[in-house]
């Protein structure tokens, strides 16, 4: 299974679309949002930090969901079918794909954090950096499952569109682009129930020197269970035809 993960990671990182949109976009947006229109003194450190978490979360979310788009492509190419006639078991293939996402979210996540620290001068103790990166990394799990569910359930074309839609919706409503504090009241309360918002909250709590609240963990766990169930259902359906 390690070989399978290695192969799929390699394929993802060679995908120019992934490198440009998955890694380049969040970095670019982070730099734009913290350096343009911020006035002569530039943006405050608080916003530079908050936006760094938001954009790192956005990048990681995109990479995680994007794994599902890859699955849909593989399904269309007949690659999943070919894998089914190797000794590799179906569970190994699905789990391997999920773990591939755990690897490919790293560059998306790390590049925004690096730019935050090196370019925007965000300063935190080492344990906070480590905790921030670690929590954002683990927190991608529900989104990987959502992407995989879409990938198994839908055709390659629709998966691309649906996954991009999910990414934008979850990111914007979740307050990853603009802080949820700027939203009207009703949207703010809706936002706090979404996985994107709680995902970023994992990171924001660390940068504020605390630990994620119970509510945040509970909401994320609920989404993890929901998306996990969806992924299993989608895979079972697809297994009949793949």
């Amino acid at each position, binding site marked *: 299974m390690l*070989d*399978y993960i*290695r*192969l799929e990671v*390699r*394929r993802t990182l*060679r*995908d120019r679309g992934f490198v440009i949109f998955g890694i380049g976009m969040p970095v670019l947006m982070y730099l734009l949002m913290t350096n343009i229109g911020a006035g002569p003194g530039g943006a405050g450190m608080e916003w530079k930090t908050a936006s760094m978490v938001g954009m790192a979360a956005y990048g990681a979310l995109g990479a995680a969901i994007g794994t599902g788009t890859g699955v849909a*492509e*593989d399904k*269309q*190419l*007949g*690659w999943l*079918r*070919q894998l*089914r*006639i*190797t*000794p*590799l*078991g179906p569970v190994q293939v699905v789990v391997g794909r999920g773990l591939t996402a755990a690897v490919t979210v790293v560059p998306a996540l790390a590049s925004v954090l690096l730019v935050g620290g090196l370019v925007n001068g965000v300063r935190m103790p080492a344990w906070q950096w480590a905790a921030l990166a670690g929590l954002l990394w683990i927190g991608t799990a529900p989104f990987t499952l959502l992407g995989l569910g879409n990938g198994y359930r839908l055709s390659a074309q629709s998966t691309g569109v649906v996954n991009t839609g999910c990414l934008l919706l979850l990111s914007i409503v979740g307050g990853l682009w603009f802080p949820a504090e700027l939203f009207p009241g009703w949207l703010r309360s809706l936002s706090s129930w979404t996985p994107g918002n709680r995902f970023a909250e994992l990171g924001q709590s660390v940068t504020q020197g605390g630990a994620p609240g119970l509510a945040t963990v509970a909401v994320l766990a609920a989404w993890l269970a929901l998306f996990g169930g969806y992924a299993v259902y989608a895979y079972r359906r697809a297994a009949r035809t793949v």
Partner: protein
Amino acid sequence: MTQTKRPDSAAHTAGGAPAVAFSGVTRSYGAVRAVDGLDLEIAAGETVALLGRNGAGKSTTLSMLLGLLPPGTGSVRLFGGTPQAAVRAGRVGAMLQDGKPVPRVTVRELITFVAGTYPRPMDVTETLELAGLGEFGGRRVDRLSGGQAQRVRFAVALAGNPELLVLDEPTAALDVEARRVFWRSMRAYARRGNTVVFSTHYLEEADEHADRIVVMDAGRVVADGTGAAIKRRAGGSLVSFDLAGASTGPLSGLPGVSAVEVRGDRALLRTADSDATVVALAGLGLVRGLQVAPAGLEDAFLALTSGNAPHTPAPDAATRSAKELA
């Protein structure tokens, strides 16, 4: 290239279980019966061609053989166990018909990965050589020509050094030269003691490269044997002559004649008894440009699959082919 038999094949076949066994297998898509009561046994070490037209049920049969599709009724066994068990044990390698190249990997990366999933893989360099990809190892799979991509799919099937190699229309995208190279490799692999099952609608391929031909039509086996046996079974000879304006009416009633076809001004009679047919034609004065030739495999195939052969009394098929011939 080694010519030795598989060291492991003796142990695997010790139980005497055939490499492939279909018994009473049926598979439908909606109202269409793609495979209709298939009984087929393939012994370890055999090279078998599954011959039939498009839609004869070949691909469905191979999908069930590989465990990709469960049979509607009946059972499919590989080496005495389920297809899934044989696949998981690394005893099966397959080249699927609809596979497209996997993007963003090199040929060598792909073959190395596939080989790594098998317990006793073939050396990667040897696989590439055998598949005619020696110089393409470093190339991206999605940047190869159609024929080269086809060879990659062959290499994927070979990579695990499987005892049972399944090839679904393996030469569909290949030119004449590439085909020759492909069959040479396939036979070299079969000679190592492996079982090979391939589907084709090219009769020459089946005749030249398989020990045994299984002819399928409408989801059933209509003939099963060596190329020579199938030619014999289809019955005899083709008698042809110039009609020169004569009526074709009485021809189908002549002794031995099983089918009549008119091409331009020339009549072609398929006959089980060419002597009797020729004597009768002489009696009618129809001997201009007369030729008697043994029926080719092509004719045998048509006879078998259109229901004209004596052992397949399918009335609807017979009527249909009679109309086609008329």
